[in-house]
């Protein structure tokens, strides 16, 4: 490791400090181990921690804006986020370990590198500029079952799934100025020609995340299955956002709209439109959860050792719905 550190105090300073081969630096919980492993190299870290414009959680009339430097621990414990965007608070709380949540930022979490064990052990795979995915025919128990191209890794972020379900917008800024991207459009499945995991350009940083100001009939939840109870990545997870209301006085309560996003099953947060459609308009009661037929991930193409993820995802969806019902 041999890098300079720049300490900009404004956006503009940060962007001009990001010269050839520089990397943004915030929590560092992913980047530092990658640098120590010696397969990510950089000449300069542009330390964003003194850029005050990247801080804060602010409620406006029609949205809540989260500065990209907000840590996962801050979000997990934030009263407003817990009350209005429970799925996000839960996803942050279930991510990584307490120490990582204290250091790691939301912006960095969304831009973290792959956790594929082949990538992390420096196999010459697509993500390292090679011409093969070693996981596809190798130890693929943790691999994607759907939505993958050449590389079968899964996106490691928990909050990403919640943000897609909550219909968040991601604001980014670079040399060309600012652009706002729907969370659903932000992530991408790496392929042989373009191994990026999201649509950020090298000169761009995430500046803030905007959540819509949902009605009081909205509730959300995030449920995650892991090999152990804590401190690991999702085998599968689900973020669900539901809008529940009585259509007219005396009518039964209905599930007006549902947004269902699976994590741990694809290289992107995987939105399950068919299940959303199936749930929409249904009577909202225990029967829906216990008797509903949930044909999740119907288009999955599992590999040798990961078909279990499909049943796991279905079970998680039922658990998520039950949790929404019980926390009415």
């Amino acid at each position, binding site marked *: *490791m*041999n*890098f*300079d*550190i*720049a*300490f*900009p*105090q404004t956006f503009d*300073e*940060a962007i*001009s*400090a990001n010269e050839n081969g520089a990397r943004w630096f915030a929590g*560092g*919980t992913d980047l*530092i*181990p990658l640098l*120590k*492993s010696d397969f990510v190299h950089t000449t*300069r*870290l542009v*330390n964003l*921690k003194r850029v005050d414009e990247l801080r804060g959680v602010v409620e406006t009339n029609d949205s809540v804006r989260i500065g990209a430097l907000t840590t996962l*621990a801050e979000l997990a414990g934030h009263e407003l986020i817990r009350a209005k965007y429970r799925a996000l608070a839960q996803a942050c709380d279930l991510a*990584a*370990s*307490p*120490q*990582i949540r*204290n*250091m790691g930022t939301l912006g960095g979490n969304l831009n973290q590198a792959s956790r594929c064990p082949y990538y992390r052990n420096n196999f010459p795979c697509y993500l390292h500029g090679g011409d093969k995915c070693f996981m596809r025919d190798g130890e693929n128990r943790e691999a994607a079952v759907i939505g993958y191209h050449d590389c079968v890794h899964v996106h490691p972020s928990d909050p990403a799934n919640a943000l897609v379900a909550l219909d968040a917008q991601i604001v980014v800024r670079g040399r060309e100025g600012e652009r706002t991207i729907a969370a659903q459009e932000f992530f991408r499945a790496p392929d042989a020609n373009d191994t990026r995991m999201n649509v950020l350009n090298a000169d761009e940083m995430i500046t803030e995340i905007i959540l819509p100001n949902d009605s009081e009939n909205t509730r959300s939840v995030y449920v995650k299955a892991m090999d152990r*109870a*804590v*401190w690991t990545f999702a085998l599968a997870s689900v973020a669900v956002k539901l809008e529940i209301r009585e259509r007219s006085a005396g009518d039964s309560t209905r599930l007006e709209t549902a947004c269902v996003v699976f994590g741990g099953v694809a290289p992107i947060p995987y939105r399950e439109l068919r299940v959303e459609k199936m749930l929409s308009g249904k009577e909202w009661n225990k029967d829906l959860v216990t008797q509903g037929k949930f044909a999740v991930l119907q288009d999955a193409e599992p590999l040798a050792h990961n078909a279990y993820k499909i049943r796991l995802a279905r079970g998680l969806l039922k658990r998520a719905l039950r949790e929404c019902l019980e926390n009415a």
Partner: protein
Amino acid sequence: MTRIVKSDERVAVELTVNGERERVYIEPTRFLAEVLRHDLALTGLKVSCGMANCGACTVLVDGMPVYSCITLALDCEGRSITTIEGLSQGNDLHPVQRAFIEHDAFQCGFCTSGQILSMTALLEKNPTPDEGELRHNMSGNLCRCGAYVKILQAGMSLSGAERGE
């Protein structure tokens, strides 16, 4: 103006460590764990994985547990750091240290300073954790001897919830 510290440049950094103001002269690639151990001789903190996995290197920065093996020391300018050496008052051990001894909450002891600091930070924030909260907040500290049961017992013995407070 953007301040830039060159990779081979050694700069003075002021840290508050266990309540004392310390000045160290360091390059930008130095990690907090090394600076505390080598420059300030605070060897109670251990480095095991060096990759933010195991928690042996846990210290408190402004009261929050962090992995010092991946924390750049330069980034801690002006912040308040607590290591295991900062808990006892002379020969008078901190209650969490006493609870670890009373409950035999370690074997080899390599992870212990990190475990004690994580538990101390939790109890500062929440003096009455239940067992679930204790487990959740201790989950970033691994113990390969497997002393977890005893560590939990030590923690619960200090929780006001356990004592009916």
